[in-house]
């Protein structure tokens, strides 16, 4: 395991958004001196934001181009000692799993950045469109979020990972809270809206991550000192490849029990809850609908496209890689929870009246596949789960953008309020249809590949329980089709509701965000091989420790 070669490309990718952020802050700091008008600042912030995102995307693609997927070895390594006494390093590198997520991140953020640009000329003074409020602040947080997410995926040091993980939280809190929906009182008397959703998101995630913090410290102290099989002496460490090696050599199996319980299992559960909240897994999923519904469109896009993946990524990176034995032990529970997510989420979708809420719950359903794949642990299932992350990472942004299109125009998302929209907005109807079809797992589109592989792989798992689980989970294909088509029918088909005669079809900003995603959806659906090539070496190593 060569961990010494240094490459700065990944570091540049991760911190490019931070540079943009610094540039915007500099502008803000210089403002009193230069007396720039607000409009100039706004436009400059937007420009810097988009350019930075584009550069980050280019760098991400460059990483992909230079990546060798056939090996499990880490690539684009950059290491520097950060805190010597704790063996904490700044250590970033990618393997197939990380890289797939990094590439997805830059792409989705690019879509989010474009979707953050204003289009609407008319200003509503009472509650202006989110893209026109506190613009520099928005972009500062947006870029901070991107750095946080990229760092999370790139970090190969647990401590560094944790820091990036938490760095994701703050900007998200403000982005939902400030630029999201204003507070409102629901019919049932509860106060909802951006601030509520933001704090809910924040609390849930923090509750998970503090458990992760404890688990991290416990792993640190269990990780040494000792010697590895090849004679290398080890110290306490946060270094993930080293931890993974120790895991393979059974260090954590021998660690002292915690409260009389097996070390690996306790730590596994701690980590699992931490990540599962982010996935989000039933019953910790209820922050998701609120956050999605009340976040501004681009933030929903990022939330669904990327942030949920950090949870699954953590499950793979930590729970699977460090505690395969405990995962074997917990596979029933994880599998059952995954199927609950799938089926329960699908059913709840069907009862939704709010388009965005429906899409949010569909995310709950679709992320269940990742859990099921993780639990099954066969190559097909794990590849499928990771592909599902990618596929959902492309499709769900489309869905949220689609929801944003109609909300920007009609200021409502109540499905029943529409009808026959295909008459007025045929292009929009077509794109929506494509997104729905991709999400319901139509073969040939990106959503299908992950689902079918997870199902196929889980079905082929040794344990008969998984066959039962798949049989139940596969019911979701029916439910999913039903709710999407029903939604399609209620919104777009049937007699045209003349109340919406003023609506315009899609504009160019929306096309620029939606069509590339649509193309990717189709391409990945028929030609998913690039993703699998990326994962070729990684997955084998990841699941190597499982007991089958």
């Amino acid at each position, binding site marked *: 395991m060569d961990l010494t070669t240094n490459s700065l490309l990944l570091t540049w990718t991760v911190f490019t958004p931070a540079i943009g952020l610094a540039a915007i802050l500099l502008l803000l700091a210089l403002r009193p001196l230069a007396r720039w008008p607000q409009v100039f600042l706004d436009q400059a912030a937007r420009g810097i934001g988009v350019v930075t995102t584009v550069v980050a995307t280019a760098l991400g693609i460059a990483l992909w181009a230079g990546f060798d997927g056939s090996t499990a070895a880490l690539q684009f390594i950059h290491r520097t000692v950060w805190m010597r006494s704790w063996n904490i390093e700044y250590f970033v590198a990618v393997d197939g799993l990380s890289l797939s997520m990094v590439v997805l991140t830059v792409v989705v953020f690019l879509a989010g950045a474009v979707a953050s640009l204003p289009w609407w000329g008319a200003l509503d003074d009472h509650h202006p469109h989110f893209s026109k409020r506190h613009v520099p602040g928005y972009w500062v947080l947006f870029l901070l979020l991107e750095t946080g997410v990229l760092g999370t995926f790139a970090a190969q040091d647990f401590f560094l990972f944790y820091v990036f993980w938490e760095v994701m939280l703050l900007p998200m809190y403000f982005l939902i809270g400030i630029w999201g929906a204003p507070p409102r009182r629901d019919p049932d008397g509860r106060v909802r809206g951006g601030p509520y959703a*933001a704090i809910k998101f924040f609390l849930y995630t*923090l509750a998970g991550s*503090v458990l992760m913090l404890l688990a991290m*410290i*416990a792993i640190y102290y269990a990780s040494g000192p000792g010697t590895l099989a090849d004679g290398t002496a080890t110290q306490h460490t946060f270094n993930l490849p080293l931890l993974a090696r120790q895991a393979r050599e059974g260090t954590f199996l021998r660690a002292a029990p915690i409260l009389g319980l097996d070390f690996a299992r306790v730590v596994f559960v701690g980590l699992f809850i931490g990540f599962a909240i982010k996935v989000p897994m039933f019953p910790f999923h209820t922050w998701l609908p609120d956050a999605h519904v009340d976040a501004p469109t681009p933030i929903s896009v990022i939330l669904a496209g990327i942030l949920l993946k950090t949870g699954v990524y953590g499950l793979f990176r930590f729970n699977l890689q460090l505690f395969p034995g405990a995962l074997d032990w917990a596979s029933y529970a994880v599998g059952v929870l995954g199927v609950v997510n799938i089926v329960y989420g699908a059913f709840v979708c069907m009862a939704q009246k709010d388009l965005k809420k429906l899409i949010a719950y569909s995310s709950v359903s679709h992320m269940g596949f990742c859990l099921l794949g993780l639990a099954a642990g066969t190559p097909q299932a794990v590849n499928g789960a990771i592909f599902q992350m990618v596929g959902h990472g492309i499709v769900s942004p489309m869905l949220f953008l689609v929801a944003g299109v109609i909300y920007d125009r009609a200021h409502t998302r109540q499905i029943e309020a529409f009808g026959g929209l295909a008459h007025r907005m045929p292009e929009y109807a077509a794109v929506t249809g494509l997104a729905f079809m991709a999400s319901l797992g139509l073969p040939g589109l990106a959503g299908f590949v992950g689902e079918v592989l997870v199902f196929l792989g889980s079905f082929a798992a040794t344990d008969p329980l998984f066959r039962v689980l798949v049989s139940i989970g596969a019911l979701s294909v029916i439910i999913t089709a039903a709710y999407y088509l029903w939604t399609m029918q209620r919104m777009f088909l049937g007699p045209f509701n003349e109340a919406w005669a003023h609506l315009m079809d899609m504009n160019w900003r929306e096309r620029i965000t939606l069509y590339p995603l649509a193309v990717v959806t189709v391409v990945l659906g028929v030609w998913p091989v690039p993703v699998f090539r990326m994962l070729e070496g990684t997955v084998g190593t990841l699941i190597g420790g499982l007991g089958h």
Partner: protein
Amino acid sequence: MGTNLWSILPELVLAGTLVLVLAADLLLRGRPDRPGALTLMATLGLLGAGISLATLPGTGAFFDGLVVGDPLGRFFRGLFLVAGAMGIWFGLLSEEVPRTRFGEFVVLILAATMGTCLLVQSRNLLMIAVSLELISLPSYALAGFRRGDRLSSEAALKYVLYGAASTGLMLYGMSLLYGLAGTLDLPSLAPALGRELASGAPPVRLGLAMGGLFTLAGLAYKVSAVPFHAWAPDVYQGAPTPVTAFLSVGPKAAGVAAMIRFLSEGFGSSATGQPFFPWPVVIGLIAMATMTVGNLAALAQDNVKRLLAWSSIAHAGYLLVGVSVGTPEAIRAVALYAPVYLLMNLGAFLAVLAVRHRTGAETMAAYRGLGTRSPWIAVSLTVFLFSLTGLPPLAGFIGKFYLFAAALEVGRPFFLVLALVGVLNSVISLYYYARLVRAMFLDRGAGLPSVAAPRPVAWLLLVLAVPTLVLGLFWSPLAALASWAAGLS
């Protein structure tokens, strides 16, 4: 004797400054620039004390073992000097401290600072009692500094009664310890108590428990640990904000440091063998209760000052986690957490002070829309609040990380539970900190006046916020200092 006096040179410098300030206060009577001049004098005095602290010779026991010169003491003394300086500066910036009596204010702060410096190096029960009083008496006066203000007077009354009662209990406890061991010296306390215990008579045990815990009560009240915390919210709310800021930092940290010394030296620590009575567990329970009560009570507060008061109670709980664990790593964690806590807590109170300065209010409503009305205050307050929550990459996270790591390193189930309670408490704390953040950024403060921070306040906020950020990413110098203080390096 010369060496002895050298060892308390910083305190002597403080005492000299105190006298000079008192004199200058009289001399400069009527001059409009008097507060500034006094502040300058005090600052110079504190600076001088700091320099003398840095140049102190060697370590060891002085004054026949009354005080001890060791890294831990020096570390904390430096910290208290900073806290004192901050208290004085805050006073200068606040309109809550009457200009006419500014000299008094400075003198009291200096006296209390002197007390904290002495307390942390006391190694004798008598010395502990005297230093504690030296902190307490000026503190009472400070709490009631605004004479006409009913809240301030009320706070002072509560503080003094509570303080007197706990001092009385402490004295009684100390007398019991003295009776059991025949000595007031902490290092010789442990072996003597051990001998007495070996005799095995039940009254000895009861006496030991009573003595130890009554004494502890005196310290715990300074720390505002549950169940000796009840005074704190009222006093913090009622006292002038600079006083609150000072009280929530200096005396509290001094109490924690003294507790470390008292318990580990007087009763033996798990590092040096079995303690005489299970003080780690007792302190651990107190820590859990303190964190939980502090955080939960803060949830429902509408007055920001009071909210921060409860939060500082909770933070005392975090510090006590380190005391309870008691290993050198844990002491290092406390030593690391204390300055970090100083930064963020003082910062938060400074922001409160600034808002009050402009709006005259301390309620949550006064903070609505602060993000647009006064971005500078709002952003820095947000940094402090999230640092108090313990979110990376802010300094508060590093402090908590060290604390919980120390707790987990020992591997005892009790400390594991302690750490678990600790982290769950930080989740709870997020809720009320975020409420404040929400008021500042997420709520619209339509119609409220804009509050531009006065330039000195803005600079001071920056001075506190930047380290809060930087230490979150690059904390090895501080960690090295803390290790040195804990004897680890």
